[in-house]
């Protein structure tokens, strides 16, 4: 456990020691700030539904698409950087398992992703001082954000074990995430009710909206957690398989 935490800590800190992290953080704050001002403008309209205000902070198209671009950039350095510098050899010859390495790196990257979201708590606090906000849905919205982030980061972790090149890792992650994210959107296009029902299980837009409304559906929990576990398993297997070749 201590070794796992050592890897998580190193990984998380490494983000803040590179300029990329600060660029991502700045872009993310800018986007969230813009969304927030839009929300405020909507709230200032007469007769605006004040209880739904926060819904749009978490469940808006911007956030979903931005996450889709963001996660590949966050995850792309995880393993390629270690391979390039040779530190992967140090890591894998110390008494840790491949699973510990994968989980540690995943948790570090997810930690960075969640750190990006941390400043949004200020918006919650600001809104709270001007309108009545139910904290239940706020908490569940963050759960949704974390679950979506975990899923995406696990895909990125897996993709980064496949290559030595960060750009290739980022593109690969993006190529995997786009179908994962958009297959649910077919929900809106297909007429056949059975297929539509199936697809609606995968519609992340809807999932985020549910979470933001305070609905924590166990089917969603199972989907995100098991998909995350699946990709982390693939990442571990891929890392172990890579040992066979120099």
């Amino acid at each position, binding site marked *: 456990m201590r070794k796992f935490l050592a*890897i998580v800590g190193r990984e998380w800190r490494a983000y803040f020691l590179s300029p990329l992290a600060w660029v991502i953080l700045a872009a993310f704050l800018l986007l969230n700030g813009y969304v927030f001002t839009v929300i405020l403008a909507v709230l200032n309209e007469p007769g605006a539904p004040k209880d739904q205000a926060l819904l749009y902070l978490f469940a808006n198209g911007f956030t979903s698409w931005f996450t889709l671009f963001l996660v590949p950039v966050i995850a792309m350095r995880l393993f390629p950087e270690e391979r390039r510098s040779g530190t992967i050899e140090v890591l894998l010859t110390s008494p840790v398992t491949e699973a510990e390495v994968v989980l540690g790196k995943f948790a570090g990257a997810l930690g960075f992703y969640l750190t990006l979201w941390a400043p949004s708590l200020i918006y919650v606090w600001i809104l709270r001082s001007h309108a009545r906000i139910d904290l239940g849905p706020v908490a569940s919205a963050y759960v949704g954000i974390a679950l979506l982030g975990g899923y995406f980061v696990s895909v990125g972790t897996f993709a980064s074990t496949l290559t030595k090149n960060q750009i290739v890792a980022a593109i690969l992650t993006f190529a995997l995430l786009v179908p994962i994210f958009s297959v649910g959107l077919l929900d809106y296009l297909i007429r056949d009710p059975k297929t539509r029902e199936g697809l609606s299980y995968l519609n992340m837009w809807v999932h985020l909206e549910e979470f933001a409304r305070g609905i924590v559906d166990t089917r969603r929990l199972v989907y995100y957690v098991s998909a995350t576990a699946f990709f982390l398993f693939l990442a571990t297997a891929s890392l172990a398989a890579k*040992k066979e070749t120099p």
Partner: protein
Amino acid sequence: MIEVQNLTKRYPTQVAVEDVSFSVREGEIVGFLGPNAAGKTTTMRVLTGFLPPTAGTARIAGHDIVTQSRRARSRLGYLPESAALYPEMRVREYLAFRARLEEVPAREVHARVEEVVESCLLAEVANRKIENLSKGYRQRTALAGALVHRPPVLILDEPTVGLDPAQIIKIREMIRTLGRERAVLLSTHILPEVDAVCDRVLIIDRGRIVAEGTPGELRARLAGKPVVRSAFRGSVTAAREELARLPGVVAVEVVEDGLETRARLECEANGDPREEIFHLAVSKGWILRELALDVGSLEDVFVRLTRHEEPTAAAPQEPAALEPAEPPAPAPEAPEAS
């Protein structure tokens, strides 16, 4: 502490290490010598658990590298080729990370980090970022990282590559000190390093061990026959005849230029007719100008064992023996391509 038995590592297209067996005892420094791409790094990567062996096995401090991989790994300190480090971390921070990774108890991490900072002479750079360090300090930081958990077994892949002469001497001193209570396996393609540091040498070529022994033994066994060079003033016509009669002399070559007569005597193993040559010169009234014994350098052994173009029988006696028997010049430190 390190026991290797019939270790083989094959890649889909080539055999990197073929049926290698050797052992390293506690308190012993063993040099792993070979040309580039001979299988040194691959062998070390298998021993450290980074690559799985295709066949055969090895034990680190009694733990099998395949079935007890984690235990074996926890007993060894590994310095990979080209000192892999995290450039964005500070030296102390990196060493503390390595200590946690290597299961040093939380209470001791700080003390252990200070211990290796001191022993690896890193005090003045301990709070600097690794990316801003010179190559020598980086190498020492990586070595400190391999030592922070006090492993009984050390595996060092080309520990002095890319360092300047003063740094090389420092690192070698450190390795010698470390080797007193540990089993150390170090790879190199720099011959003087083996003479300077190692108790025993393994010469590996194309994935096989081709010779093993102390540097002295290898020289004696493989460097060819001892050669005595002598020179006399003026033209000594009887030299060839008289010298050939001395005990232990196998062959004599004489070169004469009017001013000086130079003789090269090939002797039997362990033969040393220098004193006889002196007496002979005195009794005949020859004026002796030069008398020296060449015992062949480790470089000769190495070149002979790893030369592939020619059959080993036609060993390079001629050039090797005509050179003065000074310590071989440092080999060019080309990075190993593997």
